[in-house]
């Protein structure tokens, strides 16, 4: 799951249709179908928990009124770029991977959007050693591939080991790093499984159905990592290597029946999938038919009209575009056919601490920033909630805090900013603001420029080619003071947010600590929190660290937690927001009578 540069590249260069294919983990107001409040939503902060062995037992809870049978149609502008699980990282690919592939662990999502990490293929969420360096999982009984053959621990191992194959270049690499301890050089440690060698750090026992991971470093949230589709199993005997991407072997409730690249895909039931082994997926329709190349505005209009097969259709991973939001939200009948949720992660502005060295100046920038006007340009309250922290509401332990009173004065507080600038003796300081050169950010730049002037800064506006934006701001010697950006975690623990953004080791060309924050107590705090076993305790520690960073370093200006709306055909039931991939949760949909 990523919210990263690549997704923004897709958003700005490929899709260019407003809503992005960003990913997320759980979100604060997910699953509901109403208009969000005008201000920030009251989050409970406990949207993700770790389930028990009983939670990991199938079948998935029935959805009231749901019926088996029929076909659900899916519309999308682009085909899935990958079906091979090891090549899946981006959220939109995971929307289909959700029904084809299963991992050792997964997220059981209820109707309100709350999630539990449960054992999916595994009987539970795994057993760690005391130091969290060894993790053992036991496979459930009765797991089968689409051809009826048994799914074994060796298949799970093979799925991970083939990440080393030269043709696998797109997946996540957390597990590879953890297994080898070689950081970015993990490829040097192993040549992949195709010459008959296995990793020493994975031990399997086929008879006992156990698989044990021996990690080079302590990873208390390793069971979250294994929920990523990059680590789904692949049957060694049926592995077609490069060709697997076009026709993978399913262990989920559906399998690929037909696929014409960039045009259509037909999924049919995997008869060997046993719902008793699956605590997550309902799988009511007999199949899915996807049509690609349908632009988002077109698909939205088709879903609104709900004619013919479109009445049974959903938008797979594209939300309602800005042009249709008002229509969808102001028509009561139409509004009943919507769901929404916050996409995981946070949008913010990096402050380059190597250039803006004075804390008071950075704090003045936060006070000055016109969050309300910016959100208005994005589409108002329906576009999202104002952010005041790095950690987003979908993260375990999230607590709302507002160090700079931005929720009270979201329009900006030029007086407070001026006061701080005066104290720092930096009145009139030049601020170079960089942003992707596209229509939306060309609008927000205007309100930002005005706000900076009102607060006593001298703004210099620097639009950057949107397709190479991240490449340019991620240069450590860049000449920008404030830079628009965003980040989303790959699983809902704060390690994957704070470490890449604030760890001194994450400074470098192409890396994500763009604010170039390198403070000893932050680096130590990250190391310390990363090894706390209890994720609820870890969550509290991360939230405290985030708050202290905002107070004492102020390296970013949090902007928004973005919301996305979806509309669906009038004969579709069970449609709800997928908080992990900001999409339609396909396996909960059903055809209404």
């Amino acid at each position, binding site marked *: 799951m*990523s919210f*990263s*540069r*690549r997704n923004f*590249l897709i958003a700005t*260069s*490929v*899709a*260019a249709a407003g809503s992005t294919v960003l990913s997320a983990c759980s979100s604060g107001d997910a699953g509901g179908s109403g208009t969000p409040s005008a201000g920030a939503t009251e989050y409970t902060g406990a949207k993700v928990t770790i389930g028990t062995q009983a939670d990991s037992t199938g079948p998935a809870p029935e959805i009231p009124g749901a019926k088996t049978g029929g076909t659900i149609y899916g519309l999308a502008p*682009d*085909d899935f*770029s990958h079906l091979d699980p090891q090549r899946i*990282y*981006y959220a939109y690919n995971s929307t289909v991977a959700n029904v084809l592939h299963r991992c050792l662990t997964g997220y059981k999502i209820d109707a309100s959007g709350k999630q539990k990490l449960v054992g999916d293929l595994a009987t539970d969420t795994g057993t760690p050693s005391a130091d969290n360096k060894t993790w053992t999982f036991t496979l459930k009984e009765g797991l089968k591939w689409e051809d009826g053959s048994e799914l074994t621990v060796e298949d799970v191992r093979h799925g991970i080991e083939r990440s080393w194959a*030269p*043709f696998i*270049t*797109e*997946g*996540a*690499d957390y597990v590879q790093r953890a297994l080898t301890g070689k950081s*970015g*050089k993990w*490829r*040097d440690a192993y040549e992949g499984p195709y010459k008959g060698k296995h990793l020493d750090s994975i031990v399997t026992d086929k008879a006992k159905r156990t698989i044990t991971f021996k990690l080079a470093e302590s990873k208390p949230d390793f069971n979250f990592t294994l929920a990523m589709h990059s680590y789904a199993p692949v049957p060694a005997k049926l592995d077609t290597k*490069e060709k697997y*991407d076009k026709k993978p072997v399913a262990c989920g409730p559906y399998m690929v029946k037909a696929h*014409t*690249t*960039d*045009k259509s895909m037909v999924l049919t039931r995997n008869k060997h999938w046993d719902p008793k082994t699956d605590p997550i997926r309902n799988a009511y329709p007999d199949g899915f038919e996807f049509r*690609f*190349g*349908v*632009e988002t*505005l*077109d*698909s939205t*209009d*088709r879903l609104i*009209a709900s*004619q*013919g097969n479109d009445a049974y259709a959903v938008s797979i991973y594209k939300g309602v575009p800005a042009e249709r939001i008002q229509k969808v939200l102001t028509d009561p009948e139409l509004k009943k056919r919507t769901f929404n949720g916050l996409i995981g992660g946070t949008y913010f502005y990096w402050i380059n601490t190597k250039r803006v060295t004075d804390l008071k100046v950075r704090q003045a920038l936060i006070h000055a920033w016109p969050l309300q006007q910016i959100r208005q340009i994005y589409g108002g309250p329906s576009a999202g909630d104002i952010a005041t922290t790095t950690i987003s509401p979908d993260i375990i332990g999230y607590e709302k805090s507002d160090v700079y009173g931005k929720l009270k004065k979201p329009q900006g507080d030029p007086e407070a900013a001026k006061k701080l600038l005066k104290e720092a003796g930096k009145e009139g300081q030049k601020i170079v603001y960089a942003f992707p050169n596209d229509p939306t950010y060309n609008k927000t730049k205007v309100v930002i420029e005005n706000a900076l002037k009102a607060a006593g800064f001298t703004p210099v506006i620097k639009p950057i*080619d949107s*397709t*190479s934006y991240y*490449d340019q701001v991620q240069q450590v010697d860049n000449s920008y003071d404030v830079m628009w950006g965003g980040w989303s975690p790959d699983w809902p623990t704060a390690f994957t947010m704070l470490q890449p953004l604030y760890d001194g080791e994450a400074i470098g060309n*192409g890396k994500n600590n763009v604010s170039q924050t390198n403070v000893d107590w932050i680096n130590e705090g990250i190391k310390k929190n990363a090894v706390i076993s209890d994720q609820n305790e870890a969550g509290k520690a991360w939230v405290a660290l985030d708050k202290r960073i905002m107070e004492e370093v102020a390296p970013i200006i949090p902007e928004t937690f973005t919301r996305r709306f979806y509309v669906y055909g009038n004969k579709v039931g069970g449609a709800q927001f997928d908080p992990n991939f900001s999409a339609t949760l396909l396996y909960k949909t059903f055809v209404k009578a």
Partner: protein
Amino acid sequence: MFRFLVRRILGAAVILLIISALVFVLFYAAPRDPARIACGKVCTPETLELVKKNLGISDPLPMQYWEWLKGLFVGRDYTSYGHCDAPCLGYSFQSREPVLDTILDRFPTTISLSLGAAVVFLIFGVGTGMLAAVKQGKALDKIASSASLIASSMQIYVVGVFATYLLVDQLHLLDRASYTPFTDNPGKWFSGLLVPWLVLSLIFTANYTRMTRSQMVESLTQDYVRTARAKGLSRRTVFFRFAWRGAMGPIITIFGLDLGVLLGGAIITESTFSLQGLGMLSVKAVGTNDLPILLGVIMVAAAAIIVFNIIVDAVYALIDPRVRLA
């Protein structure tokens, strides 16, 4: 005629060669790295090198171009995909499908859209223009001229969305735009393309009406037309055998170019109606830095324009006896 064709075909080959070289250079001049786009979120230098090798872009630019050219005639071997038979246009960076197969898959949509619309706009555009010229200065002329001015000011992405809303969603008169191969179901092929044809031809009809009218008006004042009338030929004969033939030259020239451009992909129309033709393919290829697809589509588009230019030149001579092929 034979010498003319040989000369033009040789010229076309040179033009295509130049275009392909230019696209190669321009592609790499852009500050975007296709390997970086194809590389995952955690793109280490080692992984990036692997991606470049997998995509076949790890060699220096001249070498890559040479390999691409060679592939056209003798095929090509890829580490990731195996052998690609000649004429090999490479593999898409994004879909990893052979470019030629992708283009052949999309071309029927574009041909159906272009030719169908061309039939409509030629009949209505030229017909209305001729009527307006005959009725010059009268009500019909004024209505046709004003209507064509309004229609030519329209944008496909506006008219297309409005037509779908009105004719498909509200009045349920026509089917939603879609493409079904003619060989699968001629009825669905026709009904699915009717709205795009009408919308696309609306813009073109207007242009052809205006052009035909002005050409005919000019033609009707020519000496040879006056002479024909003075000789006592019937009004119909003068109009069709003399004036019309004289007026058609420039219209055929523009039609050849228009059709060539449309066959290269009616980008806006295809995007508006979500038709998976060459136009949509090229838009996506630009967005994703998919050089092999981009190059393939540009070659097809350029070839279409060149071929239609040659046909236009040949037809010119048939219609207008004053023109001889040299």
